[in-house]
């Protein structure tokens, strides 16, 4: 699939544009001078050692974290303190978390229809139809009336993906979607993500699943100490890493 990346010099503006972005937690400089352009339909995998700022970077894109310097533009809207802009962008950008974060007091179906009904103002019936469509897609439609607590981890994560898709997002962010799962459930979640990639969804994925990166990503970013140290196509990245730190990281992760 990685054989057909969106052409460079695409006429359309990038869907995400980050320029000279910095972020601090107190005195701690988590993200330093980040530059990143993501084209529509592009799939990016972000990896790097623990604490390097991967989560913080993608959380800045839907402003779960606030950046302090530089610019982030998503789908033509710059992220500022304007609350209206933020809510608009959040509705356009789907996010999948490491720990699923489903709403335990709502059924699976209600989890999926909540956003469309309250944010998009979609009629309930239509929202439920959309929800069932996406539940079919993640192969879990028969669980629609259950509560999250009654599902396995892999099932919950697939529901979480469907919940984001129900908002019809333009971009999907994934923060280590498989690292809280038992090994035998990783595949079912990755399969859903791969089929999503096939349909041309723009995806930013923080993951250490290198197989996924090789087969799906157009670009792999390597982060360390709050910087993007290296970025390349998967083939180049895995076969000819440029930086010492990248080599060290890959040798540790690939054994």
């Amino acid at each position, binding site marked *: 699939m990685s054989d057909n990346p969106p052409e460079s010099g695409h006429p359309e503006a990038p869907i995400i544009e980050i320029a000279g972005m910095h972020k601090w937690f107190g005195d701690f400089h988590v993200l330093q001078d980040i530059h990143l352009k993501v084209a529509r339909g592009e799939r990016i995998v972000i990896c790097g050692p623990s604490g390097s700022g991967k989560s913080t970077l993608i959380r800045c894109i*839907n402003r*779960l974290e606030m950046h302090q310097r530089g610019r982030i533009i998503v789908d033509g809207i710059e992220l500022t303190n304007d*609350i209206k802009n933020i*809510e*608009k962008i*959040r*509705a356009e*950008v*789907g*996010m999948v*978390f490491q*720990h699923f*974060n*489903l*709403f*335990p*007091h709502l059924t699976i179906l209600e989890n999926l229809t*909540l*956003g469309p009904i*309250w*944010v998009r103002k979609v009629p309930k019936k239509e929202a439920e139809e959309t929800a069932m469509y996406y539940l079919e897609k993640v192969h879990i439609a028969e669980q629609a009336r259950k*509560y*999250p*607590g*009654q599902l396995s981890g892999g099932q919950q994560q697939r529901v979480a993906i469907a*919940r*984001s898709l129900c*908002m019809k997002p333009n971009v999907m962010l994934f923060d280590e979607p498989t690292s809280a799962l038992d090994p035998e459930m990783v595949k079912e979640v990755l399969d859903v993500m791969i089929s999503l990639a096939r349909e041309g969804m723009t995806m930013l994925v923080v993951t250490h699943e290198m197989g996924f990166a090789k087969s799906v990503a157009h670009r792999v970013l390597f982060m360390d100490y709050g910087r993007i140290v290296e970025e390349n196509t998967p083939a180049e990245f895995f076969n000819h890493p440029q930086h010492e730190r990248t080599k060290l990281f890959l040798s540790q992760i690939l054994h």
Partner: protein
Amino acid sequence: MTVHVYDSRTAEIKPPVTSVGVLGWIRKNLFDGWFNSVLTVLVLALLVKMVPPFVRWALLDSHWLPSGSGCQDAQGACWSIVTANLRFIIFGFYPHDLQWRPLLAMIILVALLFYSRNRKHWRYALGWSWLAGLAVMGLLLRGGFFGMAVVESTQWGGLPLTLLLAVFGLTGAYPLGVLLALGRASRMRAVKTLCILYIEMIRGVPLISLLFMSSVVFPLFLPEGVTVNKILRAQAAIILFTAAYIAEVVRGGLQAIARGQYEAAESLGLNYYQTMRLIVLPQALKIVIPPSVSILISAFKDTSLVVIIALYDLLKTTKSVLADPRWMGFSAEAYIFLALIYFCCCYFMSNYSRRLERELDTGL
């Protein structure tokens, strides 16, 4: 190599007799070790000594006739004090001929309570029927329409007054408490400080002093000629007091909600109010059902403190009966009856909350 052969007879072996059935239960619950055995024996002895005399006093040797004849030289309880004064204890100084009105109001209340027990009935319509029901109850007590005579609130008393203070107190205090808790958890400094100040000040004084203030101090600040109904003032004091405690309990529930829940809600684009109303509060309030109900129960019982500002609630009407020379010396019976009424109400509340907890359990 060994081969396991499963003999069909092994399935028929039963657990030892002493671990199942009645014997098993007794052994496990009453005689589990020497300490528990000693306790069991002691408690049994105590019960044998106390229960038969009480039954003899309360039932076998008791008098029930409203005339009270034979009470003076009886060995047992004189329930006549209750049967003779039932209407005064329950309704206080409410005009005798009009007592069907508070009675009807209480029946509406009980009907609404029982209807609300079933979660299937929880719809917006139920909320409206509660509002309508409360209004109708108030109007029934007060009168002044459809040719019903006006009964001034100074004549209200007894059980209707107690229930009025409790029901309006609790329905007022709970939303206020939730708002205070949200305010205290807010990121806005001014709101947060105000809420903390309020909660800590209210929790720092006893309810009695608030009631005194509402009846003695508060009128001093009113312009000449303006009076605020005494019941209303007591009601306000109860609401303000209870809300502070509710707020602290709800705050505990809010803290138990994981950050991930807020983040998931925000990443869907829900705004603050939607996040709170749809995601956070339903979960937080469910967690705090048991402590909230404790507070509601104690608030219900605390309504009896209004006697000190001379309102004739259930406790006060009972005490006035005891002041009558004819019924002196039968306070035990009167107080037992009073306790029974309070117990029924409180038991209903705690029973209801347990049921609610069970029904809202979604396994995570």
